[in-house]
Structure formats: structure tokens, C-alpha cells
């Protein structure tokens, strides 16, 4: 029996110290997941707490297939989605402007090395809906169909939001790159 599965067993028995152990092991990596979905750290920590509560309460349902971390990550993402639904979805509802030209995609080569903080800022500055779709599609690798179901939006909405999110991101990155070049010139 591996260390992890022992901890899981103890967690199911509501052993606080085991729960804390599990928390200590995975909190930072899961908070990293949450962070991408949120505007700021407090929000991310809210989601983390909520997610861990779900994890602890449902750990006995964990099938054991696949690594625990993947299961926990999924719970975090779902929690983030719930959070988004609760706090943002309708408030930031945006009309979909039809048929935005997808245009010819220019080759994207980024000379500048962006730090993770810069990229995080780019993500968190996105409108909440775009942020969700971008995270789910680009980083998590969900399909638009799945995203549509998760976010309760149309598949096409997911696609168009994604392309617009992408456009916004590209603009931001280009600005950032320009700024960096200027700095290095100085």
C-alpha cells in the first residue's frame, strides 16, 4: 500500500492530521490551478478551500483510477466553474457580436521570454468569461463541446469567446513585448 493511498484511507476516516497532510502535499499545486481562473489570490484561495472541502467529503468516492492529483485538479476546475457561475456569469454577460472575422492568423513568434507572472496578469485581465474558456481550452485541453456543457453556453459561443480571448491575449503580449524591447534598449 502506497503512502498516498494510506493517507486517503485515513482522510476518509476524517483523520484531521491525514487531511492536513494531503492539503500540505497538494495545496500549492492546486492553488496554482485555481489562480489561473481568478482575478486575484483571495478568490483563488476561496476556490481552493471550497475544492478541498469537496475533496475531503467525496474522497471515499474516488475510484483510484488514475492519479489522485488529476481527480483533485478536476474538482478544483469544477469548483472554479461553479464560482464563476455564482459570481460572474450573468453580471458580465456580454452580447456576442456576430461573425467576427477570424482573419489570417499571423505567425506568432515571441522573441521576449514572458515570465509566468506576466502571463498570469494577461490571463487575469481577461473578462471572466474569456478567462474561463481560455483556461479550459488552451491549458486544460478541454474540447469546446465540453466547455459549452461545463459553462452552460453554446459550443459556438465557446469558440468565439476563445478566439476573442486569444486575440486579446495576443494584443497584450505584443504590447508587453514592445515594452520589454524598449526597456532593453534603454
Amino acid at each position, binding site marked *: 500500500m502506497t503512502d498516498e493511498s494510506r493517507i486517503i484511507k485515513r482522510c476518509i476516516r*476524517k483523520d484531521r492530521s491525514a487531511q492536513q497532510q494531503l492539503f500540505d502535499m497538494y495545496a*500549492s*499545486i492546486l492553488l496554482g490551478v485555481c489562480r489561473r481562473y481568478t482575478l*486575484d489570490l483571495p478568490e483563488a484561495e*476561496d476556490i481552493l478551500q471550497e475544492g478541498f472541502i469537496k475533496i475531503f*467529503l467525496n474522497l471515499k468516492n474516488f475510484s483510484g483510477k488514475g492519479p489522485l492529483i488529476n481527480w483533485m485538479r478536476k474538482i478544483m476546475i469544477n469548483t472554479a466553474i461553479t464560482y464563476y457561475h455564482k*459570481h460572474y456569469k450573468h453580471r458580465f454577460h456580454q452580447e456576442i457580436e456576430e461573425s467576427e472575422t477570424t482573419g489570417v492568423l499571423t*505567425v506568432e513568434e515571441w522573441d521576449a521570454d514572458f515570465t509566468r507572472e506576466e502571463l498570469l496578469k494577461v490571463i487575469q485581465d481577461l473578462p471572466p468569461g474569456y478567462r474561463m474558456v481560455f483556461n479550459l481550452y488552451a491549458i486544460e485541453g478541454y474540447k469546446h463541446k465540453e466547455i459549452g456543457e461545463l459553462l452552460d453556453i453554446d459550443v459556438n459561443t465557446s469558440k468565439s469567446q476563445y478566439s476573442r480571448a486569444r486575440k486579446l491575449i495576443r494584443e497584450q*503580449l505584443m504590447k508587453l513585448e514592445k515594452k520589454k524591447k524598449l526597456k532593453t534598449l534603454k
Partner: protein
Amino acid sequence: MEHDFNHIEDLFRNAFSGYQVPPSPGLWKGLVRKLKVREFLRFDPSSFNMYYLGAIVTVGVAGVLLLGKPGQQDRLDTQAAQTDMLQAPEQDYEVAQPVQKEETPLNEAQNEATKAEAEAINNKTIKEQDARHESEVAEVPYVTPRLEAQESSQVAILKAREEDGFRTLMPLAAFEAGQWSGCVPFTVTFSNTSEYAESYSWNFGDGGMSEKKEPTYIFDEPGEYAVTLIAEGSHGKDVVTHNVTVFGRPKASFEIYPEDVYIPDEPVNFHNYSQNAERYRWDFGDGEISEAAEPVHYYKTTGNYNIRLIAWSAEGCVDSLTITNAFESTACNIQFPNAFRPNPHGPSNGYYTDGRTTNEVFHPVCKGVVEYQLRIYNRMGQLVFESNDVNIGWDGYVNDKLARPDVYIWKARGRFSNGQEFVKFGNVTLVKSDIN
């Protein structure tokens, strides 16, 4: 397609694989607290315990009491129940809870009293149970105050977060101006309608900058300017640009020709040299106006006139120019009557005095004439009279004989005091006098 646009995705996927954020220190404790509440609220047969039993008993009893007892009986029962068993005070207490607000303080006091009278041991258990009820009843539609408070504090925190979320939104830069275009010098007061922003920086497009929230700016050169507002908040910044168009003013300019005008016969010509203008208004200074570009004006009387030209550009910008005492108006002038009636009693040598109305001598009314020649011919073209003196006219006699009544042709030429020459001709009717 999938292929060539994976750069952004790769960029982010790489950056965030294994991304870790250490949670803040108090997080675990908060988590445990929440977890306890949740675990508690989650009904689980395996953890069925005294709490659940107590809750079920309480709920059951409360239900029975609510159904079985109309309100009025309540007090009597309470008093009567002094010697009752363990359950009596508890029942009362439970009923008192939901109805408490409507009941008098007296009743509350009675409740307290009954409680106090209960046996020491019983009392203890009741209190314990009561305490538990407060939290356990949450399973049932009644929400006890303490839990409510807990919930509401969570709600409050969430609300605060939401508001935080609003405040920490990306700033939205936006601004308005009363007018986006105007004539130079164009003064604009910008009203800032940005949201979620804390600081602003303006670039007016002509090198001018401001950090004010709502600056007033004067554009003193014509042109098209891109006015940029950068609104910065704690979570980023936003940029918005509006174009401001500044029109050049026209330049009103004109000359008068001639500089010396013989009024009222001669017109004054106005030569318009205005630039960048397409609409004009002339004020000739004598009460008359014109909207022609290059008007010609006849003044009726001499005098000093101030001429004002207002010129408008296509965009409605305006300029004006006033020339005071625009020209020398000379009242040089010569005019001839078209009939006269000679004195039948003999020639007068043609001398006349201005102002006499006898009309016996044909002569011009004139001013400023320095050179003068008048010739009068009859119908056959014979010269009947000639004068080189403006003060001598024709008395109607030829060789001391009265000419016969007819139409005669006259021609006058000469020069005015200002050097202007004149040539005039016309005809005049000699009217036969009544012979008394």
C-alpha cells in the same frame, strides 16, 4: 490550421505546467473550520450520534407542540406544568423560540422561572440539549440564530469579495468633450467617464500632457489631434483615444476702391482678399449690409464710414475686419435739370444764384467743379450757347432774342476739385413762358 496557431497555447501551457502558489498560512485552519461545519451538516448514518438524536427529538417535540397547541393555552399550561416532568420546560422553550417576538416579556420571565424550578440535573441536560438544538435544527427548515449568523457572516465575506471583484476590475478608460471640433484657439474641457481607475494620464496629441482627472486644454494650432487617455487602476490600465479637430480661422481682409469717391454718383468697390472663408457679411456703415463676396455699394451721402467685413469659413469659424474712415468721400457732383423757362422780359446774362426757384436760367447744380465747359445745341446742331464758367448758365436768349420753345441738346465737360474729369450730356426743354 490547428498547427500554426499553437504558439499562444504552448506558451501558456508551458508556463503553467507545474505552477504552484503557496497558500497563505491561515488557509488550513479556515478550511478545517468550514469542513467541520460541512461534515456536521452532512447526514451520515455512520456518524449518527447524540447530536442527531437530540435534533430529531427536538424537531419531533416542536412539531407536536405546534400542531397540538393553539397559542392561548400556552401560558396556562406553562404555569400548570411546574411539576411536570423533564419535557415540559423544554417544550415551552421550543415553542417560545419561534414565537418569541410576539410574546410579552412576562411570558419570557415565566419561562425562566419554570426553568429555574426544574431539578438541577434535569436543568443541566436541558441546557445542554438546548445548546445543541441551536445548531442541529439546521437540518430542519428552522435555522437557529447561531448558524444563521455563521452563514450570514460567510455571505458577508462573499459579498465583500464580490465588491472587491468589482473594484479590482480592469479600468475602463472613457471620456467625453462638449465638442470634438472647434475653431482655433479651441478650448476643450474633457469630462472623464472612466471606471475603476485611480489615476489618469492624458496626451493631447500636440505634445501637451496632463495628469488631471478632467483637464481643460487649449489647442492653439489647427489640425487633427488624437487625444489619448490612459486610465490606470490597481489591476491594469486602459487606453482610449478620441480625435479632436481644430479648424483654422478665416482671415478677413479687404480693400476699397477708389479711395476717393464722388458721392452719390460713384460706387465704392470692395475687393475681398479674405482667406479660408466662404461666407461674408459686409456692413457698409450706412445701415446697409450685403452678403456678396465683392459688393459694390453706392453711398448716398458723404461722411466717414466704418466698414466691417465678417468672414466665415466652411466650418463656421469667424473673423472680422473693420476699417474706420474707409475712404474720402467727396461731394463733387454735377447735375443738370431737364427743363427751364426763360424770363420773357429780356436776357439776364446767365448769372444765377443757387437756391432760386424761378428756373429762368439753365444751369447745373454742382460742387467742387474747377474746370467747366457747357455747350448747348439746337435741333439743327447749331451751337446756341457756350459757357466756360460754371456760374454762368443759359438764360434762353440767342443774340438777345428769346429762343423758341424746343428741346435743346447740352454737353458739359470739366474737372472736379479732386482731379476727376467729367463729361455729361443730355437734353433740356425750353418752356415758353406765359406772357403777362
